């Protein structure tokens, strides 16, 4: 009863446009005030302690890498290199779009950073070469979803800290699903361009390609530091993030694209984004402590077991539930609230926490492309100048592609678990 009241209060407050952090905090504080034996001091303690994990330090650093990648013009360099690489193929810019997202995702853990950085370059370029705007917007939005699945991934750090699993192992678990999404998107592009003979190949000069390749080559050093450093056991995720920031900064200095004002803007942007997310993390820590005190994980597990004892049906229910949650909440808030509740049930069904993590993250990032709170939709509109309704129309067909990938990742655990096991971390 208390739990139901808490959840209803949070939903009502969210719908009343109360900031997410405070929609979680207000019912939690009411609970603390009305409960016997606990004082308001516990709220301060829980909210602050929730931020004290050293693993969370990686979040502002990976956010900063994404900002730096945008400021230093890495997106443009990648675009020129990949345009040369895929140029002779029909519909090349479609493949360039997906490949750029894959490479950019090795430096950034945020779908919105990917959509902002690459969208600003790719959508206008695709429009100029005669690609329909809806296709350009939809493909850019869908391929930006690779970012939060491929390591480094901010939702993966939050899930790992909340679920108590290794960040490195969860990063490894995200690699193949992210590549699978890229492959499925490439298949979509292939099918699409077969019906569009007007999307001719774009062949450039050999010298131009060599120049673009040399300019883009140092960019590939960042993924070596991040992925190689973490998966190879050299760096902790936080150390890898710090090394990646320094490397990207040096890259910007070498490209002469960094200024003092640019540095300040990067620090400020990182502070803003970190403040937005971490205020929610603090509030969710308090809310999570209360739901655990009220035995929510046990109650949810028992309820699910009353409905089904089949792990596949459980995963299907989880998918439907999280797709609905993702339509309202951005992934980090949603993970903080749902992981402690769903994980015990998943463990009962013998589902690996790493597999559940990838499924949950993929589910929730799809919400970034669905109204009413699809943040990537707003960013795509902002960087392309397209009205919101046109962005939504462009993205709709790609939701089917994303759902197909989600079903594959959900029902074929090996997609997530093969790499961590092969590396001996899962």
């Amino acid at each position, binding site marked *: 009863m208390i739990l139901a009241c808490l959840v209803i209060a949070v939903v009502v407050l969210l719908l009343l446009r109360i900031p997410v952090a405070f929609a979680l905090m207000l019912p939690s504080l009411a609970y603390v005030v009305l409960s016997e034996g606990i*004082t308001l001091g516990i709220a301060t303690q829980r909210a602050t302690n929730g931020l004290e994990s050293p693993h969370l330090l990686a979040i502002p650093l990976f956010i900063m890498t994404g900002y730096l990648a945008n400021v230093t013009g890495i997106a443009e360099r990648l675009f020129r290199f990949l345009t040369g690489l895929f140029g002779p193929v029909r519909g090349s810019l479609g493949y360039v779009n997906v490949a750029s997202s894959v490479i950019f995702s090795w430096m950034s853990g945020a779908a919105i950073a990917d959509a902002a950085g690459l969208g600003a370059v790719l959508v206008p370029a695709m429009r100029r070469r005669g690609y329909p705007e809806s296709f350009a917007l939809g493909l850019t939005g869908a391929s930006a979803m690779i970012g939060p699945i491929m390591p480094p991934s901010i939702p993966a750090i939050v899930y790992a800290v909340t679920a108590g699993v290794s960040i490195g192992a969860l990063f490894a678990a995200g690699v193949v699903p992210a590549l699978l999404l890229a492959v499925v998107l490439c298949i979509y592009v292939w099918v699409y361009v077969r019906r569009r003979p007007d999307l001719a190949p774009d062949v450039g000069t050999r010298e131009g390609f060599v120049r673009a390749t040399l300019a883009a080559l140092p960019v590939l050093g960042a993924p070596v530091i991040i992925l190689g450093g973490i998966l190879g056991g050299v760096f902790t995720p936080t*150390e890898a993030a710090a090394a990646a920031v320094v490397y990207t900064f040096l890259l910007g200095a070498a490209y002469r694209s960094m200024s003092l004002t640019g540095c300040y803007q990067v620090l*400020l942007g990182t502070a803003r984004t970190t403040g937005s997310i971490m205020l929610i993390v603090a509030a969710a820590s308090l809310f999570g402590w209360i739901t655990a005190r009220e035995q929510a994980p046990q109650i949810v597990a028992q309820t699910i077991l009353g409905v089904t004892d089949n792990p596949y049906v459980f995963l299907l229910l989880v998918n439907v539930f999280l797709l609905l949650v993702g339509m309202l909440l951005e992934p980090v808030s949603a993970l903080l609230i749902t992981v402690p509740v769903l994980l015990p049930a998943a463990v009962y069904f013998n589902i690996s926490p790493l597999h559940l993590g990838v499924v949950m993250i993929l589910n929730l990032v799809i919400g970034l492309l669905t109204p*009413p709170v699809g943040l990537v939709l707003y960013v795509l509109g902002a960087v392309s100048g397209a009205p919101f309704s046109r962005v939504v129309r462009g993205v709709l067909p790609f939701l089917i592609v994303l759902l197909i990938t989600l079903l594959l990742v959900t029902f074929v655990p090996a997609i997530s678990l093969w790499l961590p096991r092969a590396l001996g971390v899962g």
Partner: protein
Amino acid sequence: MNRPDNEAVRPLAWLRRVERWTAAGLVGVILTLMAAQVVARYVFRAPIPWSEEVACFAFVWLAFIGGALVAGEEKLLTVDVVSPLVGRRGRLAVECIATLAVVACCMLMVAGGVPFVRRLGGIGSPAAGIPRRWWYLASALGLSLIALHAVVNAVAALRRGSVEWSEDDGGTEEPEGRSALP
């Protein structure tokens, strides 16, 4: 609908400036400490025992001061399903309810937090010996600033007679506060 363009004429402009520099400085501190740790560990083979703890301390402050900065810019993350459903007056009403909720939360947290901080006294953190009260002070100060911004922004909206929500832009202007969320 655009936001007020001139930052200097917005209420509490000086406070926002202080928050911006403090928050950006805290990010710089975290980066410096973690980069120093990498260099100390891998280059000099002499890890700094307190660097991670001090970085965590800066991170806790960044969360609350960054939160206050974003609150001052009216860009805290919200779920917006009401804006297409309500008119100008409805928006003002929604804004007032949200302000009351935010202020109530902040005041309860601060009221509960201050005695708690006092009671904890000077228990130090394990490596750097930073007293716990300095950790918890971040939430008290940050939430007080958020309450102040919420009230000032709501009063400004009431005086203007309209509320400016970033979703008004309909995708023609980048929602800055959300620009790198995962």
